Each structure stands twice: as structure tokens, then as C-alpha cells.
């Protein structure tokens, strides 16, 4: 049974316009480590949480009544975590994290709660969870220990287009639409800042196809209202070296392999 609790320490965001990002318990906290006051230590998602907060701050600087902000939810995806609700709330408030709501669900029903909360991006450290969410039409991305060392002053989103990823069996209308909708919103946020000194940087990396597939990706994104900052066309070269320079907070790929209509 899912329960949702608001974090009274944090000002609630406008439901219609906010971009809801759900981050799992295991990403926010280092689940193994607890200090003696029963407070969890922070996990790999910390730089990401900080940078989302930073984007919100800059958005409000541009427009003090801005409603299109990132709204962060902490979601549990296991029964065991679900039962730790008070520790989780305490730890979150202890660390002063800008988490708007808590969603206490289990492995059976966390997908539903993503839908109920209108989640536009689901971030987890667990590959299976990401896959399940994607299959149900919620764009997902994996966080790992690389995420822990990303910068916290600029949100770096990298979209990987890779022709060798076989089209998702679920490349259903819903899944594609939610991917496009999420990108459109990111694009809108990006538009609020100038070319330089933006707290959000959008990068596209095409692995396999040549320049023409990169070109069509740029055009598709433009039609969604996303203006891309950086583009790398690898022509088959390995992604590793380039990605380690880019240091994305998260990579969007599997759910986005086909952007064109």
C-alpha cells in the first residue's frame, strides 16, 4: 500500500507545471551506513540533488514566480525500505535535502506510484527497476558511482543515440510520448537561460551512425523545442573516453532510441 507524505520543511511545487523527478531511496542514501543517531549517510545521488536545487534557484532568480521547477520525490522500492519511513524522513530533514514528498511503496507497487505522482523522470541505481519503469512508459536513468563525482553547479544531461540498441519492445506510443514530453520540458527550462553560464547543459552523443544520424537527431530535438548545447558524433569510436570528459549526471538512452515520430 502506497503512502505519500509531504515534507513540511520544503515549499511544495505547483503540481501542473513542475517537472517531477523521482529518486530511489538507495540512490539518495547509502543504505548500508547509518550513523548512531539513526540517520542515513548520503549516497550517489547527492550531486544530482544539489544541482537540481541549483537549477531551481537560478530559475527563481530569473523569475521569482516561476512554476516550472524540478520537484523531487524520494521513493522507496522495497517493502523493507517502506517500513523505515520515519528514519527516511528524519534523515532527509537532517541533511536539509530539497525533497518535496516521500512515496513509500514496495517492489510491487512503486510503478503505480510513479504514475500517480506524475513522475517525468525516474532515477535509480537498480537496472531492473529502470527497465520496468521504462516499459511502463516512465523515462528512467541509472545512477552509479560515477554520478557521485559529477559537478554540482551545472546539470549535465547527455542523450545517447545508439543505432545498435534494438528498439524497445515497448516502443509504445505512451513510452515515446512521455520521453518526448520530458525532453520538451527540459528544453523549456533550458530556454530560460542564455547560451553561456547556463545551469543546464544538454549534450547529444551519437555512437554509431555517421553525421547524418546526428543531424536528424539535432533536428528532431529542435522540433521538440530542445536546443542542444554540445554534440559529439563518434562514428563508432568507444564512448568511454568521451563520457568521462562529459561527466553527465545521467544518461538518457534506452527509452529514447527513437525520437522521430
Amino acid at each position, binding site marked *: 500500500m502506497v503512502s505519500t507524505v509531504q515534507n513540511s520543511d520544503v515549499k511544495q511545487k505547483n503540481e501542473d507545471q513542475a517537472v517531477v523527478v523521482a529518486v530511489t531511496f538507495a540512490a539518495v542514501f547509502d543504505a548500508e551506513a547509518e550513523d548512531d543517531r539513526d540517520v542515513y549517510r548520503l549516497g550517489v545521488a547527492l550531486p544530482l540533488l544539489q544541482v537540481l536545487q541549483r537549477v531551481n534557484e537560478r530559475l527563481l532568480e530569473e523569475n521569482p514566480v516561476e512554476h516550472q521547477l524540478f520537484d523531487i520525490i524520494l521513493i522507496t522500492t522495497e517493502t523493507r525500505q517502506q517500513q523505515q519511513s520515519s528514519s527516511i524522513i528524519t534523515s532527509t530533514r537532517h541533511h536539509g535535502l530539497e525533497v518535496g514528498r516521500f512515496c513509500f511503496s514496495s517492489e510491487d507497487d512503486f510503478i503505480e506510484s510513479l504514475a500517480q505522482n506524475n513522475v517525468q523522470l525516474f532515477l535509480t541505481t537498480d537496472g531492473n527497476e529502470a527497465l520496468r519503469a521504462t516499459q511502463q512508459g516512465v523515462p528512467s536513468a541509472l545512477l552509479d*558511482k560515477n554520478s557521485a563525482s559529477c559537478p554540482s553547479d551545472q546539470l549535465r544531461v547527455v542523450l545517447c543515440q545508439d543505432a545498435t540498441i534494438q528498439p524497445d519492445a515497448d516502443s509504445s506510443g505512451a513510452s515515446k510520448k512521455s520521453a518526448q514530453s520530458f525532453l520538451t520540458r527540459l528544453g523549456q527550462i533550458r530556454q530560460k537561460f542564455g*547560451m553561456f553560464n547556463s545551469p543546464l547543459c544538454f549534450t547529444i552523443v551519437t555512437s554509431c551512425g555517421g*553525421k547524418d544520424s*546526428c*543531424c536528424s537527431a539535432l533536428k528532431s530535438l529542435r522540433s521538440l523545442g530542445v536546443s542542444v548545447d*554540445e554534440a559529439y558524433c563518434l*562514428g563508432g569510436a*568507444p564512448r*568511454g*573516453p568521451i563520457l568521462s570528459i562529459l561527466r553527465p549526471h545521467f544518461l538518457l538512452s534506452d527509452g529514447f532510441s527513437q525520437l522521430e515520430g
Partner: protein
Amino acid sequence: MSLDPIQVMSGQVKELKVSPSSNGDTRGSWEEKEEFDPNQLDLTTKSKPVTGRRARKVEGAMFFPKPENAVTVAVSSRVLFRTEREQKVFEQKGVEEYLRYQIEHENEPFAPGPAFPFVKALEAVNARLRELYPQSEELFDIVLVTYNHAHVGIRLINTINHHNLFIERFCMTGGSSPIGYLKAWHTNLYLSADAEKVREALAEGIAAATMFMMEKVSEVSESQLRVAFDGDAVLFSDESERIFKTHGLDKFFEHERENEDILLDHGPLKGFLEALGKLQKKFYAKGQRLNCPIRTYLVTARSAASSGIRALKTLRAWGLEIDEALFLAGAPKGPMLEKIRPHIYFDDQMFHIEGAAEMGTVAAHVPYGIAQKHNSPQTLSGGK
């Protein structure tokens, strides 16, 4: 670059040391996750649709050499094409207007810039290499590098297609430094309009040179790549030039004579000459020595009878063959270059760069060594 087993014709079988290109700053887990299987590429990649313009294609699959196997030449968009009008818009009207202008003119291709004939010649060499070694990855690989925002990317891609260039790799860094990417691409040569970036690249051990817009450019061969190099502070270190600048010509001659048998230290472009030499040997191995589509030249102010000897001995000790060595003994380089018609000439002194350009030779400045304290571009529009 890994070496196919090839018999070196000059009599010595020598294991040539590849100029070390440092790897990009990789962290273990990115590599493991993203490891790309090149074998998979040949089998599963769909064949590129043949359009009328693409005359050259490797059967079926798109053929992308691994960066460490190819001779990677990174070229800035500002030297491959002419973008002065757009630069002016940027300088006078700011970045937003600049981007709007680029998008508005997206379907208008840029005109060729100073590096264009050089890049075309690299492609001509590739065509010959593919005929002789269809499976080899030891080819020139051209990467377009630009500081531009990816907005401009579409216009650049349209331009590449318009001119029928075979460039499938690029970096649009949206303003951040490309140096990390140059290393990740195992870049063998970087050509840019921006002297600062070139200096940064040189500091990282990447061969690099600054190029300038030219008023008139002489015609060059479309079938044979010709690359000319100055000696001191380009192929060799600037140690001798230091002596010349601080103690004068006589001391220079004396020093060179005394040290004739001591090898000169290497300079920033030695690695690139080496890479060219390796490709040349592939042609020699197939009996193409007289018909080789790569030709290299040394154009130096040293004189044949004296100071030039040390240069030749050094090259020989390095196992590098240079096709023609021209010792000018201080005479102006312009007329000689005009006769040679190289696609590109590398020199560390702006004086020579300007002299070359006056006579229509595309010259690229290597901002290295003691001569930089005395340099100042007089006539050419360089730098930013």
C-alpha cells in the same frame, strides 16, 4: 598506431616508436560499461544508402577506423571553412544574434577555408590506401572540432555534405575546451584558427598549428598530398635556434659543427611526420614508391654543407625518410614553397608564414620555442 608487419625498404628493419598520444582521462567503470565491439559493427550496421554524391564507399558497411589505429587530424570549422561573416556577426551583435543568423542560413554551405585542400588531399590518400588495403584501419581520420553551440551543427553538416567531404566524426563543444576530446580521439594533428587553443594542445603533447585566412591560394595537386616542414622548432627542438638568437650566426654554425653527431631533440611535429612516413611505407610495400600519393619536404634555413648535416643525421637516426630536403642557407622560403606547392607548410616563425602566404602557399604557424618571443603577426589575421 599499431604497425602491420612491413618490410622497410631502406635496409633497416626498425620498430618505429609511435608518438605517444595520452589516453583521455578515463575511469574504469565508464570503459567497462561502454566498451564497443568493432566486430559487431561490420555485421549489424545497416549499409548507408548510396546517393549520387558518394563516389567512394567501402562495400556495404560504414567504415570507421578505431581512433588509435588511424592518423587522426582534428580540424576546426573555422579553418576548414570560411566563416568570417559569421564571426563578424558574433563580434558585433553578440551570441544570440549569431545563432539566429546561423540557423537562418542553415542551408547555405560555407565556402572552403585554408585547410580545405589539405583535407581533400587526405581523402585522396585514403582512397588509394583503401584500394591497396581494404581491411586496414591505418587511414587518415578527419574529426571536425568546433567551439560552436550545436545549433550551428546542422549548417556544418549540410556544408560537409555539400562539399562531399568524408567526415563522420565531430565535436561541438558548446564553448568548453576541446583539448580533452583531442586526447580522447588520439589526435595526431590539430589545426585551428585560435593560437591559444593551439598552444594548449602543444602543451599537452599534441601536434598543432594555427592557420590563417588567405587572399590568394595557389593551385595544389588533387592526387598527391604534399606536406612541408621547417626544421628547427618544428621537426626538431628549438635548441639550435636558441643559440642563433642569443649568440648569432657564427656561434650557431660552430655549435652545429661541434655537435654534428649528437642528435637534435624532437620537436612538436615530429610525430606527425612519423605518422605520414608509416603510411608512405604501406605504398612502398606494394611497389608504389614512384607513384606514392604522399610526399614530404623539409624546407630549412640551414645550409646543406654545414648545419644541414646534423638535421639529416637526426632524421636518419629517427628512421624517418623525408622525400626532399631543401636547404636554403637563409634565403627566403616563399619562392621555394611556390615551386613545391605543398597543401600545408609548418613553420614556427610568423615571418616565414607571411612570406609563404604572400606567394599563395597555405602556411600554418607552430607557436613553439624561442622564436615566439620575437613573433608578431603583421599582415595575416590570426588569433581569435
